[in-house]
């Protein structure tokens, strides 16, 4: 039996050979001849006994009811439709990693603000429009008014009764 095996047996009583077996005698003999392993064994016994003082916890009487309520809430949320499904990652993050959830929410808000304030593709912001655009627009209106005036003159000319000077 080597030292490593003995240490494993000291730390894990489940690995120790059954009492009365030759292996168990070998284990005990090893502890007798190795003061270091013996000290470790004794100290480890103290640890086992100390840990035994810590008794199991009794769950509250309402424990089961709380579990079933959580299951029921989970079912209700599960049937909430698309929005329910979309909200699940956020809900999970909120429950397990609130810091990360808050960070992601902030990022989403910032991204939303950037997207809504950005002009659409190919569309220049109003402030950046050059002054000539406005001038071109005025010129087009003038041109249209001229055309209307010219057509009106032409119409009047056509409809005007023939005068004596004309043949």
């Amino acid at each position, binding site marked *: 039996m080597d030292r490593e095996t003995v240490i494993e047996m000291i730390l894990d009583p*489940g690995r120790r050979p059954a009492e009365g077996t030759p292996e168990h005698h070998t284990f005990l003999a090893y502890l007798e001849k190795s003061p270091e392993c013996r000290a470790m064994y*004794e100290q480890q016994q103290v640890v086992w*006994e100390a840990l035994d*003082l810590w*008794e199991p916890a009794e*769950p509250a009487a309402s424990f089961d009811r709380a579990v079933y309520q959580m299951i029921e809430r989970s079912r209700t949320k599960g049937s909430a439709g698309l929005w329910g499904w979309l909200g699940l990652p956020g809900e999970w993050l909120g429950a397990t990693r609130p810091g990360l959830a808050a960070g992601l929410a902030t990022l989403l808000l910032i991204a939303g603000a950037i997207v809504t304030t950005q002009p659409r593709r190919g569309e220049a912001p109003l402030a950046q429009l050059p002054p000539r655009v406005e001038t071109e627009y005025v010129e087009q209106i003038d041109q249209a008014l001229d055309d209307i005036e010219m057509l009106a003159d032409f119409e009047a000319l056509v409809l005007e009764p023939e005068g004596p000077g004309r043949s």
Partner: protein
Amino acid sequence: MLQVKEGDAGSFELLLNKYRRPVVSYLRRMVQNQAVAEELAQEAFLRVYRARGSYEPAAKFTTWLFRIATHLALNSLRDGKHHRREQSVDGDGSERQPLQLADERSNPEEQLVAEARLDAVRRAVAALPEKQRAAVLLHKYEGMDYAQIADALGCSISAVKSLLFRAYESLRVSLGHLAANHKKRPAEDGNGSLS
């Protein structure tokens, strides 16, 4: 668990009855706070219920359940939830339940000594790094072997051996002062006192 998977609600209740106490106890020892431990245990059972459809009996159910519980406990400890609620070891005393001594005849002085010893144990366990703590609790109180602990912690068996070696080494130092009246010889103890 396979019956739960098939939609048998009664089987889930049986699971709850069987594992409620060990899971709450494990989590309380992990986070050292009864209220947080119960919340985490409820969450663990909810996850078991939700995942029942995808459960494959590849691993032992207990290992699977404790893997979920460990994951929740480690997340809770890292997020510091248990500190926000209350300072359990030094806190408002909710963790300090009256010690249930086997010997009802023990006098107040013995009670005090026992409580001091228990307090020392809690502090020593709380002082362990989280994974070492989980390994010790699964090994000592849940009686898991190295392979099961490795599965629950998501690490190799050799990593578990290393975790346990270091954890018990720390505990032998921090709990060494409790050895005053303890000088058993190996032959007297048989296979040790692991319960």
